[in-house]
């Protein structure tokens, strides 16, 4: 149905997609897997003719049945694309939060598809949209029609996107990481829905993902991409059970799973952190003279402790209060009751997004030295010479396995994995005993993820650290943690040793979380 031949796209001289060929047949689900920068999304956008102006299509053809959308690197007329987009090929994007227009009612946004591509009568449009809402599992469609995107949850928004994608009965849906921004439980529902809808209506699906587990579950056929090239393609079963390509093998191995976990030494007896009956609040309301203030109760009666050398995992879905808890523990949020006792100095934090959590105007060296300077400022007794600080920073570079010339580089010159190493270095340079890591590997590709996890474990041994390890990824947590707390709506529903929890979860919610991934 769709044929892509020798497609080559570059950005400012850098090749993003390098001469790829593939086809998608009617009703087939084809997965494109690969790490960030492998050219997955560029491929999808070139089929739709949606690449930005900076992109340079150097060559190749894209045929939809008999129509050429791209021939010898030349795009078809805009009007040709317009009749295909939405009508024959529709697209679902990663971020349901931002992919819908925030100032238009969701019903109207779905209805726009009908207005653009069909001559459905005005009076029938609402009915058609509501029917489609029902078919993607959205309840009370009539009420939903008049809502705005911000009034819906992430899962509902993605369902609305799917409704928008299927309402004109296209032949192909391109889904670019459609579930990456969603919680695991929701993720599964959306995957099941996509699969059902495609098979019911014989719609082809091009499913782009970095998550190999997902591709394995949904796709008939898989393409593995690396650096703009398809390194391997074949039936899903063959690829996963008998990968031929070296890179494919590495990719599959790097996926965190619950199979291999090394045994580790027992953590010590003494506490580095003890939290009892912690309740954390957020202040609501404006800062105007007359606006009322109210406190929102986020964390409810949480008690736990972390032993020296222990890695305590904190899992739960987004919005359950994981980050709020960590902020209160660090003293960044003062609106709490209960007791937080630190038995070590300067607990530190590692953040999720290494792209935005490092100051882009400073060099890596400066960033690494800053915590020491701050420490010297706070404590009158502590004095470091400039030379001490410098050598400590170089030392830290070695510890996080970065080369010495990184010292003078800026964060923008580093890859995601390197940046996360810098964040780790920043956290460890003051020699804390406790480090709070808030989703430290969630923004990274699987192969990088594995390296960072390895590094964190090694540093834990070398520097006698304890971690509070926050993650939504059950498998990552399984590999990293000695003990796990499961959090739901601000409460700890279950605590226990990692093995225990995974093998015999007591709570229904824990079981649900585990089953979903």
């Amino acid at each position, binding site marked *: 149905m769709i044929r892509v031949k020798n497609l080559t796209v570059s950005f400012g001289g850098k090749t993003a997609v390098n001469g790829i060929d593939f086809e998608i047949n009617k009703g087939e689900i084809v997965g494109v897997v690969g790490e960030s920068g492998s050219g997955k999304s560029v491929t999808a956008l070139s089929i*739709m003719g*949606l690449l930005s102006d900076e992109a340079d299509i150097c060559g190749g053809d894209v045929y939809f049945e008999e129509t050429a959308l791209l021939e010898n690197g030349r795009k078809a007329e*805009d009007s040709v*694309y*317009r*009749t*295909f*987009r*939405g*009508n024959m090929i*529709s*697209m679902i*994007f990663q*971020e349901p939060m*931002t*992919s*819908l*227009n*925030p*100032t*238009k009612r969701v019903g109207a946004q779905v209805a*726009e*598809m009908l207005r*653009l*591509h069909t001559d459905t009568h005005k009076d029938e449009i609402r009915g058609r949209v509501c029917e489609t809402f029902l078919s993607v599992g959205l309840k009370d469609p009539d009420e939903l029609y008049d809502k*705005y995107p*911000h*009034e819906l949850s992430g899962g509902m928004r993605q369902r609305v*996107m799917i409704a*928008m994608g299927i309402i004109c009965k296209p032949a192909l849906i391109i889904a670019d990481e459609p579930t990456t921004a969603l919680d695991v439980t929701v993720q599964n529902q959306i995957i099941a829905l996509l699969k059902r809808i495609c098979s019911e209506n014989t719609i082809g699906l091009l499913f782009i993902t970095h998550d190999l587990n997902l591709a394995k579950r949904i796709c008939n056929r898989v393409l593995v991409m690396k650096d703009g090239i398809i390194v391997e393609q074949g039936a899903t079963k063959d690829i996963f059970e008998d990968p031929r390509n070296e890179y494919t093998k590495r990719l599959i191995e790097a996926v965190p799973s619950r199979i291999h976990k090394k045994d580790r030494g027992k953590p010590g007896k003494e506490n580095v952190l003890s939290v009892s009956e912690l309740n954390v609040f957020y202040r609501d309301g404006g800062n*105007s*003279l*007359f*606006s009322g203030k109210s406190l929102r109760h986020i964390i409810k009666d949480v008690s736990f402790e972390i032993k020296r050398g222990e890695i305590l995992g904190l899992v739960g879905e987004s919005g359950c209060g994981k980050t709020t808890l960590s902020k209160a523990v660090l003293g960044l949020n003062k609106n709490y009751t209960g007791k937080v006792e630190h038995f070590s100095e300067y607990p530190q934090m590692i953040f999720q997004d290494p792209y935005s959590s490092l100051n882009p105007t400073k060099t890596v060296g400066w960033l690494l030295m800053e915590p020491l300077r701050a420490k010297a400022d706070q404590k009158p007794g502590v004095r470091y010479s400039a030379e001490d600080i410098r050598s400590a920073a170089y030392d830290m570079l070695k510890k996080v396995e970065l080369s010495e010339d990184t010292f003078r580089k800026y964060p923008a010159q580093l890859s995601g994995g390197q940046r996360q190493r810098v964040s780790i270095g920043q956290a460890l340079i003051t020699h804390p005993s406790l480090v709070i890591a808030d989703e430290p590997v969630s923004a990274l590709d699987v192969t990088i993820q594995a390296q960072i996890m390895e590094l964190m474990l090694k540093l834990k041994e070398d520097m006698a650290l304890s971690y509070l390890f926050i993650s939504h990824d059950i498998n990552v947590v399984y590999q990293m943690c000695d003990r796990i707390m499961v959090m739901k709506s601000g409460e700890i529903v279950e605590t226990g040793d990692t093995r225990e929890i995974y093998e015999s979860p007591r709570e229904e919610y824990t079981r649900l979380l585990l089953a979903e991934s």
Partner: protein
Amino acid sequence: MRYLLKKIMTLSVTLFLVSVAAFIAFQIIPGDVVGSILGTEATPEREEELRHELMLDRPPVERYFHWLFNVVKGNLGVSYRYSKNMNEMMPVKELIGDKLPVTLSLAALSILFIIAVSIPLGVLWARSKSRALDAALSVLTQVSMAIPAFFIGILMTYLFGIALKLFSPGAYVSYHKDFKGFITYLIFPAISIAIPKIGMTARFLRNSMLTEIKSDYVRTAYSKGCSERRVMYGHVLKNALMPVITFLGMIIAEIVAGSIVIEQVFSLPGIGRLLISSISTRDFPVVEILILYITFVVIFVYFTVDILYRVIDPRISGK
């Protein structure tokens, strides 16, 4: 409803504080009102009499509350400087009531021009793919922003008034007599006010749209098969207007409070000119009321912007 009540309370408190500040300022500024009203040759008895009449022999706090009480009742006091006839002093209410329609009509007209021109211009600019158009608009708006309004006013007077004789410079028809003629006299001043603001607003809107175009929902809109025009007007414009509205609010507040320079250049008897002459003659009752008027206008415009925000962006009222 609660929101509205809160806003009204903020408004009254602000007005109160501003009026106190203005009152205090006039206590500090040197110069004797009585002296300036009666001239140098007045007898001490007459001076004493007038001082008593104007309550200037009372303590300031008492005077302030006396004044405030009257204002709340709707009695805005009398001007120290203008008089209705030989025996009667000019009430501030009448004085301002006479000038306000001029300033408000001028403001309305220039705001109309600003909105009607800058929005299509900004969208056109954001959509422009040709370098020449982009450069031309960039230079044009830059120039329009750089020229002071009064200079445009002088140019207009010369070009349309003296050379083309479309209006007679310096003349003015009262709105009581000939409303149509009155509006024709306002057109050129309004254009003079609008031109620099149009440059700024168009530029601002263009930048806002270019930022907005990078959003994910724009890509979604294209993927649905929308034409570029439809994406721009149907999806991007409304979102891009958000910051522009705040900016427009600032401009509108400035214009409604009186365009002093333009009123002077075109000899229009508006609020701006009244304010200048009252300050220089220490006509305290007039100045105080004008300050309150300006404060009210500014707060009211921001309040309207707030409401507009809520209308445009459902996320704000949804909270």
